[in-house]
């Protein structure tokens, strides 16, 4: 019998599991995919929005501000990349400038620091701003993270503290029992006192297993370009002025290790699992980035991707116990700024649990993780010292991102470690660079096979059936 089963190992589920792992509760996280952070957490703008955008009086506004405030210290505890880059909201003309004042007023009320920049002041810092931009509101504490890195780190520490992670474990049905709930999965049944529905784009299906939802899932796709790290067209996140219809608009985001994201569009779609890109979507991104920026080198694109946001007919986040389903807690409709809000969403869920669940502290729980070795951030002397201890740190596998064999082995051996080529990419970076794995993937396949004790034929790219190699070559 579990105390809490969390359905979904995205940023919400993993953040919650990490925070709950401070207690003695018996917790399981069920994830239908082959790794953590496979849905919206894998494919978004990677920005920790500071909280000026959500309307007054919403849960979104409250949780965004509270969540964003926690990120820096969380990333410090978990040794995840966190880079304060600042967010330029670029207004074009008087009408948009007036909206900047609305955002600034909200920021004042919420204690968010900002500054206004004239066109010339902004241009001095961002020469690629388009000729349309007349004024900029800079939320200079805005940061970027790698969302999947944060999720994997949360899960790693939670697992170390005794939380169980069950991958490839889709929830098939949920039954009410006298003591709580029975969850049926192909990997076996899970009996639990509480369920947290953090299933992202699939949250409506999970909710429908216990009650008819009062909202409907309306997933929205967002598509992006990724530019070569040496292209660096911007230093800050560049936003257009947000609108109700188009949300945050098409942005340019400098990521932690230097690639630039350009996107997203925002299109409704039926299938929550369809994260394919489309010509129409990418054309929208190409056309609309020009509003705020010029000369964006889209010819230096190294990848395009799409993510599906877990939007619903509810305009606000829903974080509450479902009426008529006691001890079943929804964390749904966590669209943007869901990443930034995740720590506060987790806190809110914990306070809901605490109303009826006793959560004794686990004195042995350790909430931090050992800092991963990242050679490219070290001085030559520090690298040499490490390589002397472990020669695998001297063997470069990914030349684009400068990742050594030692770092890849670490990523595999850690709790909640990488089991797939994409899992290695998510945790330490090979494949994120300009060759997109052209050179390093064969080496990563060999390392995974050796570390996991399997044949290279069994190594998968991502999902359980995504084999990379098909047969041994007859010689």
């Amino acid at each position, binding site marked *: 019998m579990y105390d809490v089963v969390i359905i979904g190992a995205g940023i919400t589920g993993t953040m919650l599991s990490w925070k709950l792992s401070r207690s003695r509760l018996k917790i399981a996280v069920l994830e239908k995919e082959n790794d953590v952070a496979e849905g919206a957490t894998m494919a978004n703008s990677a920005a920790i929005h500071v909280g000026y955008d959500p309307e007054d009086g919403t849960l979104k506004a409250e949780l965004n501000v509270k969540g964003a405030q926690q990120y820096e210290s969380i990333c410090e505890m978990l040794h995840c990349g966190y880079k304060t880059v600042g967010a330029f909201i670029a207004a074009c003309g008087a009408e948009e400038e007036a909206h900047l004042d609305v955002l600034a007023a909200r920021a004042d009320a919420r204690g968010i620091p900002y500054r206004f920049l004239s066109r010339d002041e902004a241009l001095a810092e961002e020469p690629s701003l388009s000729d349309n931009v007349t004024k900029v509101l800079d939320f200079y504490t805005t940061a970027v993270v790698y969302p999947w890195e944060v999720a994997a780190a949360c899960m790693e520490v939670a697992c170390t503290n005794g939380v169980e992670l069950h991958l490839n474990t889709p929830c098939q049905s949920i039954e009410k029992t006298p003591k709580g709930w029975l969850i049926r999965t192909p990997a076996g049944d899970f009996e639990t006192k509480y369920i947290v529905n953090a299933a992202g784009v699939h949250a409506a299906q999970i909710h429908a297993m216990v009650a008819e939802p009062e909202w409907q899932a309306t997933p929205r796709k967002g598509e992006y370009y990724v530019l070569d790290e040496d292209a660096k067209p911007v230093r800050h996140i560049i936003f257009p002025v947000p609108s109700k219809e188009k949300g945050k608009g098409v942005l340019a985001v400098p990521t932690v290790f230097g690639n630039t994201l350009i996107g997203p569009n925002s299109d409704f779609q039926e299938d929550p699992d369809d994260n394919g*890109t489309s010509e129409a979507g990418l054309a929208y991104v190409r056309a609309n980035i020009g509003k705020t920026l010029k000369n964006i080198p889209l010819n230096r694109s*190294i990848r395009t991707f799409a993510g599906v946001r877990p939007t619903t007919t509810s305009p606000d986040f829903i974080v509450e116990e479902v009426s008529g389903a006691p001890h079943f807690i929804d964390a749904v409709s966590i669209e943007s700024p869901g990443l930034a809000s995740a720590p506060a969403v987790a806190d809110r869920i914990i306070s809901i649990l605490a109303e009826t669940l006793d959560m004794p502290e686990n004195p042995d729980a350790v909430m931090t993780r050992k800092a991963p070795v990242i*050679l490219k951030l070290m001085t030559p002397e520090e*690298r040499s010292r490490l390589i002397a201890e472990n020669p695998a740190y*001297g063997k470069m596998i990914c030349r684009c991102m400068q990742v050594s064999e030692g770092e890849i082995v670490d990523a595999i051996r850690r709790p909640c470690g990488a089991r797939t080529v994409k899992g290695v990419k998510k945790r330490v970076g090979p494949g994120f660079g300009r*060759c997109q794995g052209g050179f390093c993937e064969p080496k990563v396949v060999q390392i995974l096979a050796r570390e996991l004790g399997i044949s*290279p034929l069994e190594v998968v790219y991502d999902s359980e059936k995504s084999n990379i*190699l*098909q047969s041994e070559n007859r010689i």
Partner: protein
Amino acid sequence: MKKVQAIIIGGGSAGLSAAVTLKKNGIEDVLVIEKDEEPGGILEQCIHNGFGLQTFQEQLSGPAYAERFVRMAEELNVRILLNTTVTKLTADRVVEYVNSEEGAVQVQADAVILAVGCYERPRGGINITGTRPAGIYTAGQAQRYLNIDGYMVGKRVFILGSGDIGLIMARRMTLEGAKVIGVAELMPYSNGLPRNMKQCLEDFDIPLYLSHTVSKVFGKDRLEKIEMVAVDENRNPIAGSEQYFDVDTLLLSVGLIPENHLADHAGIRMDPSTKGPVVDDRYMTSEEGIFACGNGLHVHDLVDYVSLQAARAAEGAAAYLRNGSPKGTPLCIKNGNQVSYCVPSQFYPEDPAEKLTVYFRVRTPMDNQQLVIRSGDKVIRTLKKRKLLPSVMEEAVLLKKDMEGLTEDITVEITEVAS
């Protein structure tokens, strides 16, 4: 900090040729830094024949061609550091490298030759929409899996791009039992060498779809299907021309890009038309004492030319080590009508090289044209060209007397033959 006279970054075909030439030119203290466990670079996975016709007047496999240069390098006592990756280069020629034995090391070089090679344009560099399943590889990556690691990546294969590696892989995978359904090429002409078109596609009845591209892929876990469309003269998809092929594998042979991360970070000036460094007639980059050659400079179609040009770069580096930089200010060698790039693209009219071979490519296939090399209005040379193809690198030779005392940039252009 340790000091070395000449460091060559990269131990592939360019680096080995440069090393051998430096030694032959009396430069004793030469260090080649190679990231892989063997010298030879990408030649090691090119097990097909056709290398060395120009250099050795015989047909060799890639590894055999590399072996010749490795042996020459060994005989000349070239030091090759294997399993060693250069992580940083500065404009004043400090090379930082890392390996398991020494750790992270900084070395001061008097001259550096970049022989870093190129990488394959990935899927994200072209606009293929759809899902992101396993089963999509660059052609060279599939070649490595097959020829080095010993694994086939799939059974039903489609290839996008008629570059040479794609063509070679069409034949190779067919011979190993896969079914190659077809090759699509965006341009109305092939980008591969004519001989590869014949020997790799025609001889195996593999269809080539010119003016077509792969527009979308399908499949959640592993590739299941591709969508191919015809394109118009502006390379835009033609609505209604979609065709679908059930395949488990898509190989991309859609361009090679010089690897210029180190050069970029050293502040070396880049040529947007080659995506490699700008070099002068000695193959020196914008940073004194740093030279460039091989596919890291511009992408060659034959390894023989890589070896040859790397030797020229090494001669330039040897001359620099003896005499310093050339005198005076350089003029440019510019891309004229129908010319997509020229390498080298600078020369010294006050101190010209004895002989300079300018390598260039044309933008489109053309018949019966005239190559004109001029400096301002002064025509230096004209040459009839019966056939010009973008996939075939062209060359034009300039002599010292052609360049001496010029006051205007040189332009290389293609013009109609006056009838």
